[in-house]
């Protein structure tokens, strides 16, 4: 009779396997933490220190989402992924969101079954060459061997750039970023290419950073942002609006230090951002709780801003060391591209 019991047991498990399609939000709340896919180490974006404490702009996006959902920015489990593994890890559910300097492209949004929740950093692909080659422009790179990481948009832009300019080149692509850097430093190739912010960051790891120059050309648009799976619109909205809350906070002058004073502000935009109850003249109170729409509490924006900071604070904290200016990543009203739809 044992096998019959086994069969009964198995069919129960079978049913539960089919039913286990809870939303990401419920999963995250049950786990008490967010599994966030990050890079294997890119200064300024996601980089672990000696005690395995992660920092960077991408890491801060993970932390902001954790603060919005769980009320605690430290409730993040970082999963380091290389370029080739990242989307599979997200598709298979190993991670809840990917925040790993990944470029938003059409095919990734459509055929990969993923959704980009916004552009947290506007980047573009550049070239790094040793100073001694005496190259001043990317147009002089005909015939060069170029080191890059496989499974990236970089690999594709590279082919496009050389094809468009009718120049020959040889690609040497590796799976792991450290292999790419090693090959470049050992002279296997003349050029190292990746997003320009990455070039500045990786150059810091070299023995003599000044011996390498970043060429002026930017050959592509690389909008980098957090990614979620398709099929869970609520989770998509949570990640997207957490990012918008950080932008809106900067726009309204709300930051981690003044946020508690800002709660008394009479600016209706700030009141809506921070879910401050508004008092009518007759003494009745009205809610301004936009967290409800996301399935979150009223502190959905307060927590990330308080614990992680607004977009400007995040940018300055992480990218100042790379001497990267705000440039295209300034707010729209300052001539940049960072723009958040209104909270209302």
């Amino acid at each position, binding site marked *: 009779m044992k096998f019959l019991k086994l069969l009964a047991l198995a069919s129960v498990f079978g049913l539960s396997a089919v039913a286990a399609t809870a939303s990401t939000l419920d999963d995250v709340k049950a786990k008490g933490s967010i599994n966030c896919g990050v890079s294997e180490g890119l200064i300024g974006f996601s980089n672990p220190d000696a005690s395995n404490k992660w920092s960077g702009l991408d890491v801060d996006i993970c932390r902001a989402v954790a603060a919005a959902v769980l009320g605690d920015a430290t409730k993040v489990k970082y999963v380091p992924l290389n370029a080739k593994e990242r989307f599979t890890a997200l598709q298979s559910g190993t991670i809840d969101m990917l925040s790993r300097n990944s470029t938003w492209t059409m095919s990734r949004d459509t055929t990969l079954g993923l959704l980009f929740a916004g552009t947290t950093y506007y980047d573009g692909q550049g070239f790094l060459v040793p100073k001694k080659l005496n190259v001043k422009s990317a147009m002089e790179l005909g015939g060069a061997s170029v080191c890059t990481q496989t*499974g990236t948009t970089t690999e594709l832009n590279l082919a496009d750039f050389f094809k468009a300019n009718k120049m020959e080149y040889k690609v040497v692509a590796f799976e792991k970023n450290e292999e790419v850097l090693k090959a470049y430093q050992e002279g296997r190739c003349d050029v190292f290419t990746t997003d320009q912010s990455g070039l500045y960051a990786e150059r810091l790891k070299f023995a003599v950073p000044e011996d390498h120059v970043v060429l002026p050309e930017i050959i592509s648009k690389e909008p980098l942002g957090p990614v979620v799976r398709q099929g869970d619109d609520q989770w998509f909205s949570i990640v997207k609006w957490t990012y918008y809350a950080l932008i809106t906070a900067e726009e309204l002058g709300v930051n981690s230090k003044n946020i508690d004073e800002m709660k008394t502000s009479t600016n209706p935009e700030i009141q809506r951002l921070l879910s401050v109850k508004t008092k009518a003249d007759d003494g009745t109170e009205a809610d301004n709780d936009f967290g409800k729409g996301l399935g979150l509490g009223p502190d959905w924006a307060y927590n990330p801003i308080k614990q992680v900071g607004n977009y400007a604070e995040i940018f300055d904290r992480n990218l100042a060391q790379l001497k990267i200016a705000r440039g295209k990543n300034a707010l729209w009203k300052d001539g940049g591209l960072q723009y958040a739809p209104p909270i209302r």
Partner: protein
Amino acid sequence: MTISSDPGIQKAPAATADGFDFVYSPRFRALVSQTVVVLLLLWGLYEMVANTQANLAKLNKNFGFDFLTNAAGFDLSTTLIPFSSNSSYATALIAGFWNTVLVSVLGMIVSTVMGVFIGIMRLSKNQVVSGFATLFIELVRNIPLLLQLFVWYALVLKPLPSAKLAINFQDSIFISNRGVVMPHPTFGEGAWLAPLFLVAAIFGTWFYARWARQQQFETGRQLPVWSVNSAALVLAPIVGFAVAGWPVTWSYPALAGFNFKGGMTIVPEMAALLLGLSIFYAASTAEIVRSGIMAVSQGQTEASMALGLTRAQALRQVILPQAMRVMIPPMASQLLSLTKDSSLAIAIGFPDLMYASGTVNNQSGKAIEVFTLALLVYLGLSLLTAAFMNWFNARLKLVER
């Protein structure tokens, strides 16, 4: 309802007239348990497929191979067939496949030849020779292959100069950290005479070997088969070429800007992979060869000596043919592992099938389709190797009457 309290099953034995006991009949129990296992297996398979389909549907993805005709958009560092970023994903996978075949076949040949020599060296009476072989085998066999590949890659790259300072042989072969660049032959009219002469030479050597063997049986006179045949095989295509009037033009490599133009290149990644695979598998092959030779009883050597054969003759004519029977089955699995381990190429950036699959998967997002293809190809390659080795094994088997 719990099953144990089901009265139907409890009463079943009593219901049979001849007292057939369903619960304690071994045949019945075996039948039921096997049916259940098969059903569970089928259910598991169904669940796997249904679950995958449901998850793909949730991600708004579909299953299909039509993406293979899309443009790849990326380049590969070295391919045997023409490939550029304009080629399709399918072409990328095929280019990767040929690179896998190239490295595997070359690796098989080099590792087998090296392995046989080192295996015989280890059995040598000369302490220095056997000591060297032992050291080599123990060192190579006990370090992970992946680590060795990294070491070889570093060793291949580190000492080599840049393209501008390449080691130059007669302005035709250049060695640098871009690889070994050699002249590339382009064959003109009449070049087909060379392979024709070679085929003729192969037939000729076969007949000569048969005739020589007959001569030995009849007169006892030994003819120099080995040296004559190898000379014939080498010379025939050259003579064929000479008759046709050397119809070949060479494209010589020349340094232009960053890199060499013209010629053909063996990239450092391939050199490192081939070195790593060959040496690692040569060590295991050497042990198989040693075990094979030691499995042949000492009496065989003594008997050969007594018949007046030299040591080399004894080894070639008496010992090795018998040792082969012991060696072939483990050698087959060696060669299978070598083919599969060639997929470690991805770690050092050689564009083999695994590398191409990984890149195509990443750019197209078709993980299940791409890796199913790769899986089938590796399976096919392995089955092919196994079939060949089985055929070879059957041929060498002792024919018992």
